């Protein structure tokens, strides 16, 4: 552990490989105290509303458990289902010796200054684990909430789907309505064990001057399935993330779906990288991005290292009202017998489509909104119905604000 700290210290000023550099010293590390909340319903209405935008269901109906963190403080943490564990990571690190086999085992502390900060100034985060053979079909929910203006929130999450288990997580990040400026650094390490199924849907609902630097790495063992969804449709100053997934067991599958909206002043540099390292593994990376004045870089990278694997990349971008859309799909086949493909398109809404809907009686605005909604609705295979409904709801809510 010491050596990790040493590495982190050395990387404190290390710029990230991509994305605008951020001066970390301009953000505060002093978190206010927040009281623990037992009953989510008693939280202030404004908080509840903002959290709902990020997919949090206050009633907890249809949820298997909840974790909520305000600034640096974990205010609620609990599982309602046998076989599901939800624990603040600081507590888990003290009480669960086995966690050291997972903590910083996939992500490297010296990746850049953001990983270094999460190592040196860890505030909290969550460990969510489905025990072996347990099928947790109702989603677990987590919310990382930024309430203090100018705060640097540094979290570390570890998600484990043990052998033959099933786990679905909605992880929402949001800032309070009065917050304009802030920083969120989030390390996530995902372990999908043999024949396990994990879906992780991250919904971001930040503010105009919030900077976000997630650093995620996942590993999928034999027969495992990892679905990773990311939705960011609200204005945000800068998001840069390039999560990496390693498929190391035979027949492992990873799918990554991103829905992005870039508002004026926003810069989203979002990608996904999947390594196909075992026989019969499959990867799919799909992104749908709309800019109405923002700058979006949509990256995708699939690396095939063994024969008989398949991967497909799809980046579709719409420029609605100014802005920049930069699609960077990459494929790398390192041996014979791999099948990799990609399709990328950057364009506008076809006038023909708008007129077609107008000839059915929709106004031009209604027609445009209908087409945009369609563009953002991707059918995500293997996603349970309630989670799909939740994602649709998040898209609808955000889209109303965007349009």
């Amino acid at each position, binding site marked *: 552990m010491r050596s990790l700290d040493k590495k982190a210290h050395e990387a404190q000023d290390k710029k990230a490989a991509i994305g605008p550099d951020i001066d970390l010293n301009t953000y505060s590390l002093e978190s206010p105290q927040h009281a623990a909340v037992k009953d989510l319903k008693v939280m202030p209405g404004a908080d509840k509303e903002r959290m709902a935008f990020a997919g949090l269901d206050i009633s907890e109906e249809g949820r298997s458990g909840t974790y909520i963190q305000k600034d640096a403080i974990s205010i609620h943490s609990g599982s309602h289902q046998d076989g599901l564990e939800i624990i603040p990571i600081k507590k888990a690190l003290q009480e669960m010796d086995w966690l050291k086999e997972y903590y910083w085992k996939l992500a490297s502390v010296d990746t850049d200054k953001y990983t270094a900060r999460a190592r040196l100034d860890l505030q909290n985060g969550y460990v969510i684990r489905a025990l072996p053979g347990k099928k947790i079909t109702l989603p677990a929910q987590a919310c990382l909430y930024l309430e203090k203006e100018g705060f640097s929130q540094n979290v570390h999450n570890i998600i484990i789907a043990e052998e033959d288990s099933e786990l679905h997580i909605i992880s929402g990040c949001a800032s309070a309505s009065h917050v304009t400026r802030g920083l969120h650094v989030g390390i996530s390490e995902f372990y999908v064990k043999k024949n396990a199924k994990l879906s992780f849907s991250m919904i971001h609902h930040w503010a105009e001057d919030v900077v976000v630097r997630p650093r995620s790495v996942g590993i999928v063992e034999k027969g495992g399935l990892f679905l990773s969804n990311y939705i960011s449709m609200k204005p945000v100053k800068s998001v840069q993330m390039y999560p990496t997934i390693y498929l190391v067991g035979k027949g492992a599958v990873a799918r990554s779906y991103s829905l992005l909206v870039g508002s004026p002043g926003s810069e989203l540099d979002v990608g996904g990288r999947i390594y196909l390292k075992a026989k019969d593994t499959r990867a799919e990376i799909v992104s749908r991005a709309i800019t109405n004045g923002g700058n979006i870089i949509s990256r995708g990278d699939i690396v095939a290292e063994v024969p008989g694997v398949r991967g497909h990349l799809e980046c579709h971008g719409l420029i609605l009202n100014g802005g920049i859309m930069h699609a960077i799909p990459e494929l790398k086949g390192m041996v014979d017998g791999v099948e990799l493909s990609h399709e990328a398109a950057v364009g506008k809404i076809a006038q023909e489509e708008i*007129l077609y809907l*107008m000839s059915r*009686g929709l106004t031009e605005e209604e027609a445009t909104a209908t087409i945009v909604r*369609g563009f953002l609705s991707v059918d995500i295979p293997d996603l349970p119905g309630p989670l799909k409904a939740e994602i649709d709801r998040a898209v609808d809510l955000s889209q109303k604000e965007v349009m």
Partner: protein
Amino acid sequence: MLLIEDLQVKLGNKKILRHVDLEILPGETHILFGPNGSGKTSLLMTIMGYPQYKVTGGKITFKGEDITHMTIDDRARLGIGMSYQRPPSIQGLKTRRIIEACSKNGVDIDALAERMNFTDFLDRDINVGFSGGEIKRSELLQLMAQDADLALFDEPESGVDLENISLIGNTINDLLQRDSGEYPCRTTKQCEAASPCKTEKSCEPAQTSHGETPFKTVKDMGTTRSKMGLIITHTGFILDYVTADQGLVLYKGVVAGKGNPAEIFKQIRKVGYKECARCAA
């Protein structure tokens, strides 16, 4: 009523309609014939209000309103609807959603879809990967939901297999409040069977031994019917199913002839468009 007077239309720099006069009374259905490039689709698109079709002269009146420069959605809301030959595919937009969007008066979408043998397609993206026949059924389904007073059909039978063509034909009859059995001599098939069928009179249904007419006359139906239709056909197959009041030949951007649709189609088959246009003119 749809009234088109001396309509002239440009697409880009090209004059595509030079002089079109057309009058469709409530309850009437007209068939539009013409070779490729004669301006048939352009006429429909102009009536629907597609902005790239610039009206440079003349006037279009619908239900007493001058719609010559009205927007496409206002025309749709006024009661004009169109079944396209090649509508755009829209990724992510479910067919059900678009049918909902154009539905008036609490239409039962599932019942309509079942009738069109289209239930399986409701949750598919509109027109994405649809075959020619599936597109036609989807278009008609939307028109039914829309319940348009003036329905424009651009080659409703093209790409439709023989099994589905009667479904398409019967649906168009329904849309236009027509009953396919009632005007025996107005469909080509029956016209040929009952030949000679040259005059209006020979088209009148025979009386039964009780002296009653087994079918309503065209006139009778015309009074109860209000829906108007304008149908483009290339192959004429649709005439086997859909009765119509008037046939028009569009030739080089001009209405070159009018008459009994079945007769016109027979003539076109016999002597071709050019000759037919010349004779009719």
